[in-house]
């Protein structure tokens, strides 16, 4: 196992001065399923297109399996791409589309036919080889695009928003199918998406991008539990963001002044000096509500009153107006014995309890 793709300080500015990719360095391991996640315009697609060779970077270099391919045209790179609009050739049948790359490579016809048949078998499309692309459904077209891209056995498969053109049900099924395909083929997948659920469900590693830069890179669980900025915390899932100052920093945990309260958080490796402005993010489902005078010695306690209660069926989201003035969301999982009448009522005094392990901290970028 080694790096199959290495991006070294990649930079790309478009005419008009828009910096699409700003100093991006990235190592992708062989066999990894990596997702570039971010809103539109964050540069994720440009990074992908640079790897494919459709855009040439202004600065920086790209290595594929150790070879510098920065100057190579797309047709000399051992990568294949699944396009957002699939880009099937409308004047060719499904089989001709799938076999195109082999035909270009000069493979004998009989061998191409054989390989195409096997590949179409793999995606259960063997009976549709003679169809024209416009006769296929969206999901079928996508499978053809996938098959066409993997038949050349590339070192890396690039996927540009592969599921965005499908309807919701199909999208969910294809998530699983793509994931299985990745496991079966053992190829390196690099996918671009703006859909955080897609990124969390499908990838081994997620690279969150913001304005042309890598905001954070990590496994889905790392990103979810330990976001390193408010941007990542709010882009992936929902978070309560509280701002405070470091009061004391111990070996295992740190104490933070938040309003009149002292909150404890487990250290996550970052070094803070006393008095540093700090951000705390807490996931709504990792906080608890304590009714009345109940207490919990180990947890951080925040007093407030119940604001809104939103019933979601299997859970309920309660917003608590804290004494500090912030609003805090708490998700309550509802056991099967719960009735809707058991939910907290507006105006009730409650205490929010959060274990120090569930308080994620990072230096407050707004105070810098």
């Amino acid at each position, binding site marked *: 196992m080694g790096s199959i793709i290495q991006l070294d300080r990649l930079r790309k500015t478009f005419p008009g001065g828009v910096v699409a990719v700003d100093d991006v360095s990235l190592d992708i391991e062989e066999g990894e399923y990596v997702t570039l996640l971010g809103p539109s315009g964050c540069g994720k697609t440009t990074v992908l297109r640079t790897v494919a060779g*459709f855009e040439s970077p202004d600065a920086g270099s790209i290595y594929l399996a150790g070879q510098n391919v920065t100057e190579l045209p*797309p047709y000399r790179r051992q990568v294949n791409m699944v396009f957002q609009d699939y880009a099937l050739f409308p004047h060719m049948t499904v089989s001709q589309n799938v076999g195109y790359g082999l035909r270009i*490579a000069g493979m004998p016809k009989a061998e191409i036919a054989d390989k195409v048949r096997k590949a179409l078998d793999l995606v259960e499309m063997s009976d549709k080889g003679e169809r024209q692309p416009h006769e296929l459904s969206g999901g079928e077209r996508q499978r053809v695009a996938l098959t066409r*891209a993997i038949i050349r056995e590339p070192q890396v498969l690039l996927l540009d928003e592969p599921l965005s053109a499908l309807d919701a049900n199909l999208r969910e099924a294809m998530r699983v199918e793509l994931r299985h395909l990745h496991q079966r083929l053992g190829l390196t997948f690099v996918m671009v998406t703006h859909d955080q659920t897609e990124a969390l469900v499908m990838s081994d590693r997620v690279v969150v991008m913001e304005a042309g830069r890598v905001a954070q890179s990590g496994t889905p669980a790392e990103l979810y539990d330990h976001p390193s900025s408010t941007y990542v915390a709010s882009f992936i899932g929902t978070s309560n963001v509280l701002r405070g100052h470091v009061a004391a920093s111990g070996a295992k945990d740190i104490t933070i002044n938040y309003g009149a309260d002292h909150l404890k958080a487990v250290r996550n490796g970052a070094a803070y000096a006393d008095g540093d402005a700090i951000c705390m993010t807490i996931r709504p489902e990792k906080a608890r509500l304590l009714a009345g005078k109940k207490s919990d010695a180990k947890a951080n306690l925040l007093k407030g009153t119940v604001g809104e209660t939103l019933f979601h069926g299997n859970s309920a989201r309660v917003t608590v107006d804290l004494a500090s003035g912030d609003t805090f969301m708490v998700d309550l999982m509802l056991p099967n014995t719960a009735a809707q009448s058991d939910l907290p009522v507006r105006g009730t005094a409650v205490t929010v309890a959060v274990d120090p392990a569930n308080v994620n901290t990072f230096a407050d970028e707004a105070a810098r």
Partner: protein
Amino acid sequence: MAVVENIDAVSGSKLTLADRISERGGSGFLVTLACCVLAFLYLPIAVLVVFSFNDSRTLTLPLTGFTLDWYEKVANNTDLLNAIGNSIYVATFAVLVTLVIGIPAAFALDRLNFPGKTVFRRMILMPIALPGVITGISMLNLFRIMGINLSLETVILGHATALLAVTVTQIFARLQRLPRSMEEASADLGANPIQTFFFVTLPNIKAAIVGTALICFTLSFDEIPVTFFLTGRENTLPMYIWSTLRRGITPEINAVGTLIILVSLVLIVISVWLLHEPERK
């Protein structure tokens, strides 16, 4: 769709008798109007076709009988046949020249970004709005200054220039509808730019090219103003017809006219069919 139909059904049931009559009357008026427009467009052509088969030298009603004599006369008229030959020659080469210049121009407009691109596009399209007389006179002046003798070849250049606007517009429009990702996919699958052009781009714009060529052929075949200024001693068919008209309309001319209409119609139908290929998405 179903919802719209339902609304129609509901409102339909509430129509009074008077409403229905006026509605019928309204659509009757529209049908009459449409018929008038069609008659306005096609009555002259119908007259030409009918009289080409009429058994009389004069173009007056009533019709006297059916004959194919005028078509026989056309077949034996060497001047006329010469003119037809010249027209085919001019149209064919005008189309070839305009395609050779127009296709790369359309690609440049679609693919390249260069300073003054908008101006370039406007200037290419301008000859569409320019009267043929102007194109004719200006090219005549140019050829005179350059000391080039007028001939069918100068007519070809004139036609090719006038047709360039059509060619570039049509092919540019097709290229714009061609998703760029298709060519990228081809490159991604290992095809070099030449392979991509022949295996992916060309097959997708082929219909547009053939359709444009047919339209241009028809336009060139009928062209008079530019031809008038640029031809030497040889005559194209429209010029020949025009010159014989000075001695009055003969049924022979009607016969030629009918033949031209027939051929034009076939070419136009084919080209329209090719240019409006069903959108494959």
